[in-house]
């Protein structure tokens, strides 16, 4: 790995470290409402970053990411409420199941490319919603699964309030981010970018393109499982709305608002969209229209995201 060979990654790591330190130090003095929003932002940042691994880095425009997020969320909710599973068990099971489902579906969706890939992954998201809604005996149908308690870890009172849970999420976010950076900078990550830019070239060079795409889907599914699991704990409730079309598209919006194919873009996008949605809903009932405007504006004027705009103006 040649991370140290170029200056930019080290600067990026330093920058991210400063931001992480900031969001670790500030919360005790922030209003608890903002801390709750930041918790949500961090959870969505994990999901958005994992989607960007596909969308931005591999060139696989998956619209079905909410399906794996939902697998994680439902796994955690079911294990915790019906089987009193511990935090570690629920998290590991969520990751494993989300990765497994992703691996199974990858066989199907990878048969298609380009716009057909989008269409089929969208269908995956819609099917997942249908299952969540109709498979009542497992998912609780429309009622969903309510009363997911905050995780209990021996020695740390995570159930105690917003702050301890925030720190738990932050710690997991930091771990995910570190893994994610290592992944992107590894030869594997570079190969994904190569596949995005020219699949045929990579094939001629002797890379197993299918295997790389397959692994990217499984890894992204696993990360989405982490985010889903945390979301179940955070929200206390998991229902079909966790996996509906609007949710799935929101991950895509987060990635594109921030800047697809950039390391920090999706993280920024996740925070921007989370805060936008929640802040606007305080002021007006018509927050859905504001969200709709965010889609239209992004599509028309900022397809490379905020980081893309920043680069263009420089």
């Amino acid at each position, binding site marked *: 790995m040649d991370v140290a060979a170029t200056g930019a990654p080290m600067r990026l790591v330093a920058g991210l470290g400063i931001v992480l330190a900031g969001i670790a130090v500030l919360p005790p003095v922030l209003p608890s409402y903002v801390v709750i929003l930041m918790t949500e932002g961090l959870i969505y940042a994990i999901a958005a970053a994992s989607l960007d691994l596909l*969308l931005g880095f591999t060139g696989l*425009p998956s*619209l079905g990411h909410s399906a794996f997020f939902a697998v994680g969320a439902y796994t955690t909710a079911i294990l915790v409420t019906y089987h009193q599973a511990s935090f570690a068990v629920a998290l590991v099971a969520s990751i494993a199941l989300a990765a497994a489902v992703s691996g199974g579906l990858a066989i*199907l969706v990878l*048969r*298609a490319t*380009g*716009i*057909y890939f*989008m*269409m*089929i992954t*969208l*269908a995956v998201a*819609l*099917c997942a*919603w*249908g*299952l969540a*809604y*109709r*498979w*009542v*005996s497992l998912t609780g149908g429309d009622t969903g699964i309510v009363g997911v308690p905050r995780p209990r870890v021996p020695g740390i009172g995570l159930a105690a309030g917003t702050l301890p849970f925030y720190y738990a999420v932050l710690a997991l976010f930091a771990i995910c981010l570190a893994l994610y950076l290592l992944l992107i900078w590894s030869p594997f990550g570079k190969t994904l970018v190569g596949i995005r830019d020219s699949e045929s070239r990579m094939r001629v060079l002797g890379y197993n393109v299918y295997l790389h795409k397959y692994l990217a889907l499984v890894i992204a599914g696993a990360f989405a499982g982490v985010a889903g699991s945390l979301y179940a704990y955070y929200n206390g409730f998991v229902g079909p709305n966790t996996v*509906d*079309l*609007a949710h799935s*598209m929101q991950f*895509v*919006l987060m990635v*594109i608002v921030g800047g697809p194919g950039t390391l920090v873009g999706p993280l920024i996008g996740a925070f921007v969209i989370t805060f936008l949605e929640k802040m606007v809903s305080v002021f007006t009932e*018509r927050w*859905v*229209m504001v*969200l*709709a*405007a*965010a*889609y*239209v504006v*992004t*599509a*028309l004027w900022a*397809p490379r995201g905020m980081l893309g705009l920043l680069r263009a103006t420089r």
Partner: protein
Amino acid sequence: MEFWVNQAFNGVSYAALLFLLGGGLTLIFGVMKVVNIAHGSFYLVGGYLGVALVAATGNFYVALLASALVVALGGAVLERVFLRAVEGDDLRQMLLTMGIALFVQDACLLVWGGDPFNLRGPAYFSQSVKVAGFTFPILRLFMIGSAGVLFAVLWWFQERTRAGAMVRAAVDNAEMTEALGINVPILRMAVFALGALLAGFAGVVGSAFMGIYPGLDFEILPYAFVVVIVGGMGSLGGALAAALVLGLLDNFGKALFPEISYFTLFAPMGIVLAFRPTGLFGRA
């Protein structure tokens, strides 16, 4: 015997609705290569307009035609103003149609509120005819009839007219079609409007059949997508065949295994995709 005939009839009438819904999407997809998430919104607007116009005019058929035309006009404007600006970029088109879908959803909520509506068709819609000891509700017969007529008209248009030949040419190779001097942008707008018209029509018929309520737009979207995916993008015949297969499967699925009826709809899609990623009648 009666069970099978009734269920098959119900399945075919449901298939008629599925065809109206998916037929428009398959045209849009085939010609424009747009993953149109706003397709369910056309259905929703068509349905709400239908309810309002039936209440205003008292005539179901006037309301049906007017709603479908208004939705078609809306589709044309959308294509001209928004979609043309992001032509050729799949992801931007998808984001844009998603934004439009959300906007329409909230606007409908604002105008018509959160309560469900039932569209009251002509009085004879609630009656049925008896043939050889079996009863057939007239509303369902109307659904089958209108889908059949629309399919025939569209098929004739696509296969036998000059404009239809242009559409087929644009599906196969838009650049070459343009080079031949055919105005592809106008063609795309017309096809988008036609797709919207079918969805609006389906919305009116559908709300006479099962009512209309907020959120229905995203609820019916999967069905439209499954019809397109199984039938093959851009193929009207494929959409009809897929709608028939799915309508029958869904109906028998619901009657025989209610809890997993959703699988009977999506399992065929998975099976078809596993063997033919471009659908039953699709061309890569």
